């Protein structure tokens, strides 16, 4: 048998610290523990490196650090901005979109999912906003900064779009040090409402990012997300999206660019729980050095979800001998009148294409660059907001 690691004494150290910090909210965490490779959902993304540390709460972020971060991040000029530093709102830098009102609901629980369980035990108050029916809240940039060693942040965001409301959320994550950023998004998209969730993950290259998003989409509502996973030593972006009423539309797209010895993971569950839903997913991963990429994407179609239209494509490009990709696209289908498909490819740059470019005088390095960009372009093109697309494109190029 493969040597699946068991929970070690070290793992207990990390867990104990979390549970102690949770002030009585750690029962579920104690029960599930730190997942090992034996846990199917984490087979490709081991959390071993987190196990030996007693992660504590971070000190407030110094204002000089904040401005350094803000200067080097690709940020839009316009729109509202909410800035969090080490799990706390930086009020002087933050304002909600004018039309938004403060919500007052609790984060809904997500059982059996480690990132959510950890967040629930240690939650820190994040966004809690409600966009009133029929209003367009425009662009909101949410900036989550982390700085410090052996600390962890667990922001909880709840976003409710009432019927017909719309919002573009630009979700930027960055930091410095060896920390865990563990944000949770609880999203409700009302009837005919539309949320664009564009995420940039550029955490510290020694940091860990464990994000978990749940989104429930109502009739004719739309949740359109794109995640650029580019930072962290270990990062998982996990999305659980439910098409809870007829004619909902969901996009869970992403690009992962992984080098060094890092691991980036995009895991999603798209749950068609009502008829006539449509979901689209394109995820592209580029791996160099000894980078590891993980894609796990499940489409679940309930018996009632007739006329579901689901499509998923994931592709990985391996640029070096030591890079590796683990991919698990999954269909679980209980309704018969559906059209669901997925495709996956793994490979290196096409020698023929490379040769063609070089025969036209393009130096090899530049030719490779052109082809990598071409590989990513159709995923990036799925970001509907042009300004944000440009910002992400800039981030990808750097």
């Amino acid at each position, binding site marked *: *048998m493969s040597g699946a690691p068991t929970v070690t004494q070290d793992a207990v150290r990390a867990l104990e610290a979390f549970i102690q910090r949770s002030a009585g909210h750690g029962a579920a965490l104690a029960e599930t523990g730190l997942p090992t490779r034996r846990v199917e959902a984490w087979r490709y993304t081991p959390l071993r490196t987190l196990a030996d540390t007693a992660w504590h709460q971070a000190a407030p972020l110094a204002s000089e650090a904040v401005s350094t971060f803000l200067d080097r991040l690709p940020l839009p000029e316009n729109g509202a901005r909410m800035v969090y530093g080490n799990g706390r709102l930086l009020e002087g830098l933050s304002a909600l979109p004018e039309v938004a009102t403060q919500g007052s609901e609790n984060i809904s629980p997500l059982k059996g999912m480690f990132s959510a369980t950890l967040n629930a035990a240690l939650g820190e108050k994040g966004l809690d906003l409600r966009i009133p029916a029929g209003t367009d809240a425009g662009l909101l940039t949410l900036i989550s900064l982390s700085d410090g060693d052996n600390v962890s942040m667990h922001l909880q965001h709840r976003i409710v779009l009432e019927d017909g409301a719309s919002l573009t959320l630009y979700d930027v994550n960055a930091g410095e040090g060896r920390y865990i950023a563990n944000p949770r998004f609880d999203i409700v998209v009302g009837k005919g409402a539309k949320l664009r969730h564009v995420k940039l993950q550029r955490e510290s290259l020694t940091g860990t990012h464990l994000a978990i998003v749940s989104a429930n989409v109502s009739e004719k509502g739309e949740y359109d997300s794109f995640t650029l996973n580019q930072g962290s030593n270990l990062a998982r972006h996990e999305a659980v999206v439910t098409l809870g009423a007829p004619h909902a539309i969901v996009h869970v797209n992403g690009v992962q660019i992984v080098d060094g010895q890092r691991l980036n993971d995009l895991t999603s569950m798209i749950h068609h729980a009502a008829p006539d839903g449509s979901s689209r997913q394109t995820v592209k991963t580029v791996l160099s050095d000894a980078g590891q990429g993980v894609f796990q994407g499940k489409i679940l179609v309930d018996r009632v979800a007739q006329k579901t239209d689901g499509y998923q494509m994931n592709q990985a490009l391996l640029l070096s001998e030591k890079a590796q*990709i*683990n991919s*698990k696209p999954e269909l679980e*289908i209980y309704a018969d009148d559906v059209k669901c498909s997925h495709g*996956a490819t793994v490979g290196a740059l096409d020698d023929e294409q490379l040769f063609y470019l070089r025969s036209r005088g393009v130096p090899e390095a530049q030719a490779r660059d052109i082809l990598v960009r071409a590989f990513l372009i159709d995923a990036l093109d799925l970001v509907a907001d042009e300004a944000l697309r440009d910002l992400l494109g800039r981030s990808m190029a750097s």
Partner: protein
Amino acid sequence: MPAVTETRETVEKLAKSSYEWGFETDIEMDIAPKGLNEDTVRLISQRKGEPQWMLDWRLKAFRAWLEMEEPTWAHIHYPPIDYQDAHYFAQPKKKPGPKSLEEVDPELLRTYAKLGIPLHEQALLAGVEGAEERLPIAVDAVFDSVSVATTFRKTLAEAGVIFCPISDAIREHPELVQKYLGTVVPVADNFFGALNSAVFTDGSFVYIPEGVRCPMELSTYFRINARNTGQFERTLIIAEDRATVSYLEGCTAPQRDENQLHAAVVELIAMEDASIKYSTVQNWYPGDDEGRGGIYNFVTKRGICRGARSKISWTQVETGSAITWKYPSCVLAGEGSVGEFYSVAVTNNHQQADTGTKMIHLAPNTRSTIIAKTISAGKSDSTYRGLVRMQPKARNARNFTQCDSLLIGDQCGAHTVPYIESRNMTARVEHEATTSKISEDELFYCRSRGLSEEDAVGLIVNGFCREVLKELPMEFAVEAQKLLQISLEGSVG
């Protein structure tokens, strides 16, 4: 009469609405008491007249099994199996001189007739002169846990091919069995494999020497007959350098209420430039319309392409069993070796199938192809589960996978769970999967041309499976097409 025609006739007899082969044969049985412990293992080994090394091997497997847990990751649900509430050895009582065909129990021959084993083969079993030359297929018939008679040994022996019950091979070719048994599926490989290693009672052994193209298709008919007797078949096929063999496995089972456990292990070994084609039509009793009864089929099938440019090809048509848990796999260790998996899995009523393959690419320039067609009807659930792994040395390796699922009715489920792992940048993996319902337009078109709804479904389903069915040897292709249609009866309208 050619065997193909007879097979077709056999199959046509099948084309009745209920499962016909649910009879029991009244033969005196020699049955070991219920239960599983070291003594059971010793008893089996002793009754088989096995040497000490074989008993030791079994005991090692049994001890490993005791430490293992029954796997739960598959998408199947069944009541807990009580491994102590079953007989692990049942043998038809034989008169002395079992090798003499005249002494084969006439009741047994009548069973073959009912099973539809082609007349030539029965004639051969009955000792008819000259029957041998006319037959294209050699049969190693397994009646319950013991191979009662093996045919064609002479013709095959002239070619240097060994084809015999594995229990004979253990006695007569111990050096070969010892060298290869458990090298592809080690005793502690998995829960059901370990159980098989401890208590297997029979199965086939095939050895094709260097440079030999096996002169005929080799075939085994399986049949479970005794009440509450698990079947633990063990098959080992070795093709030496440049050897070629095609092996057919087919099975039927009698109707009954109790669930029956079947945990077979098949190991294939292909040396340089060798080729093994292994085809299965699996039609164990699936249980009744309400999901009562039916076989639990937990199978470990694995082949290793050890030599350069060797090839292993699995083709399966799975229509039977209440539960199918089966992943015929290829380990591509020889440079330029080829693995193939062609599968049709049909589930109806309350059947559950979790089946697929693993293609492990270890060497450069290895190639694999996976074509899996899943059809779910009634209240059944069917899962394709597959792994494609490109190891660091698999330079320029290639895989292509196509998984298609067809749903008939809104009470069934179809699932696709592929794992793709690549550790070599020059390796290329392509995977495609689709799920859809059977097309109303196509159904209507067929029916407007006069086909009954069931015939139309049969036609469309056979079209859907064409890529796989064409991989089957002729003898099986006809049978398989019929079986598909029979399995889906009552699923529409």
